[in-house]
């Protein structure tokens, strides 16, 4: 697992403390009952804090799973780097 995925897992662990760490990589809105709109904002703020980036909530709209979050995050980080 690369550093980005590992750090994202940490964010998930803090946002969803009851989630089994082994299940984080397959987590989605459907499998995590606590993942509501408030949890989504908390998660995004944690990601912003962890990766020291200014998160645009709308950029992550529809990212309803760990894998989708990771994909959008990679995209966001690469665009930051290229800028």
């Amino acid at each position: 697992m690369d550093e980005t995925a590992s750090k994202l897992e940490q964010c998930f662990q803090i946002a969803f403390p009851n989630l089994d760490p082994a299940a984080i990589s397959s987590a989605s809105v459907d499998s995590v009952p606590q993942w509501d709109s408030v949890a989504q904002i908390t998660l995004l703020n944690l990601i912003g804090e962890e990766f020291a980036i200014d998160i645009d909530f709308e950029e992550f709209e529809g990212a309803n799973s760990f894998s989708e979050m990771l994909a959008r995050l990679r995209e966001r980080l690469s665009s930051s780097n290229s800028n």
Partner: protein
Amino acid sequence: MKLSEALSIVQKAPTDAQPFPVLLACGFTPLHLENYLAAHLQTALPDRKVRIATGLYDNLAGTLEQFDPSGAEAVAVVIEWFDLDPRLGYRKLGGWGQRVAANILETTEATLARLEAAISKIPAFVKVALVLPSLPLTPAFHTSGWQASGPEIALRELVGAFAGRLPSHPSVLLLNEQRLNEQSNPAERYDLRADLYSGFPYALKHADALGAALAALIASPQPKKGLITDLDDTLWLGLVGEDGHDSVAWDLASHAQLHGLYQQMLHALADQGVLIAIASKNSPEVVERALARTDLLLARDKIFPIEVHWEAKSGSVERILKTWNIGADSAVFVDDNRMELEEVRAAFPDMECILFPKDYAAGLAMLHRLRDLFGKPRLAEEDAYRLATIKQNRQITESGRDGDLADQFLSTAEAVITVEWNPPATDRRVVELVNKTNQFNLNGVRYTEAEWRQKLQDPNRFVLAVSYQDKFGPLGKIAVLAGERSAGQIQIDTWVMSCRAFSRRIEYQSIAQLFQYLETPDIIFDFMSTAKNGPMRDFLGSLLERPDLALTREAFLAKCPKLHHEVIGNMDTIEQLR
């Protein structure tokens, strides 16, 4: 604090601890303010499990109007401009500018009146921490941003008047805007994107600062009681032994203003009931001459005791604490010498030791620090005569070295004890005494105001509050006893007496009152030893072979010394208790 840290603190809170329920009343999505408030409160109250409940979105007044006092020990009220009129925010498009300004003022006035009415209905036993609008006003006014417009000034006046009326409510604690400004830059507080996206208007840093500020109001530490100060290069600039009593300085012209400000601060603290003492390595006669100077800003009679000699300062501090009858954790020691500070700190690890600084910025910070350490939410009547009581105590103690002399002293003291059976639940001094007293304390059990109130609902329960005064002045309400009558037996589970009231036989009179008015043959005390309640242990030990045995009327009378108090009070109430 980072958000991840805040969430971790909340998640790691002890699940089986006694809950500390708090209502967070705000008109926006509470989101991270809730997390930060919980985290800061949890840090301040590690033995409790902080639980935050939140109210209605977009209806701050409604949340307060529906507040159920049985469900919270404290309420954090966070008001923003858009709570007063939605047009003062960015989520509603109701119009800006001169056209609506008058109407916004009308709505604001009406909303503030509604908030005030709701807050005034919150019972006194629930702490209310309140934040006035902390976000900038919108650009809704006709002047340029540099110029304050009439409506803006009027809005601030309305809020200021509202704030001015609130301190009359016994439990409202208003956040000091100046301190918040130091912690959170006003220009960086608002997050438009978060507000529009989620209804949460704060940047994380501001949410953190607000959460910390609210927690500091709700779970403030006990104010310190006494300050022990050094003299040379501390209370004044210069070495009195070398420079002479008339050459030490504390004025602007001598570049010694910081010492003058410090003296002024100590005088103000003394006026609010803080005990001030001196511990200095000097010759007593030289110091006396300096303290006799009429331009001293700290009145000489505000200082007691004065320890001036060449022995170790830890010994001076020990004697001062004994005279004051307070613990090291209730006192602050100020000295300009690091070695002296370390020597005192080593002897009293619980004592706050402050280095008197050489530079102005640190000096200013120290003055603010002293305010924080000694600040009280409200001044009580007792604060005004604390020092006089301690001076009087020393007189009694010194005469008490001979039993007959003590008896003679007390017999001429014209002591009057006022007993108050079952004082009203709204009497905050009673719970305050129970929670603040360490030494003469039956078992160290503390109560929140809500818990105390709850216990009073038991018809078998009784409370005795004792006040004292003599020819030297009043001590105020200084003792509380509480317990239950069950199957004809009296069981005392709460008994505290302020250390200021020692040596006056008030403890004996209190028991005498129980025997006399509750008509009981014996009394059981729920004694439990604590780290600090030695005086209570010794007192019960003088009456009973073991503290868990019942104290019979006969045994008490055999050991009770002569009591010289005149006792007055609401004896008629006792009929309802029998």
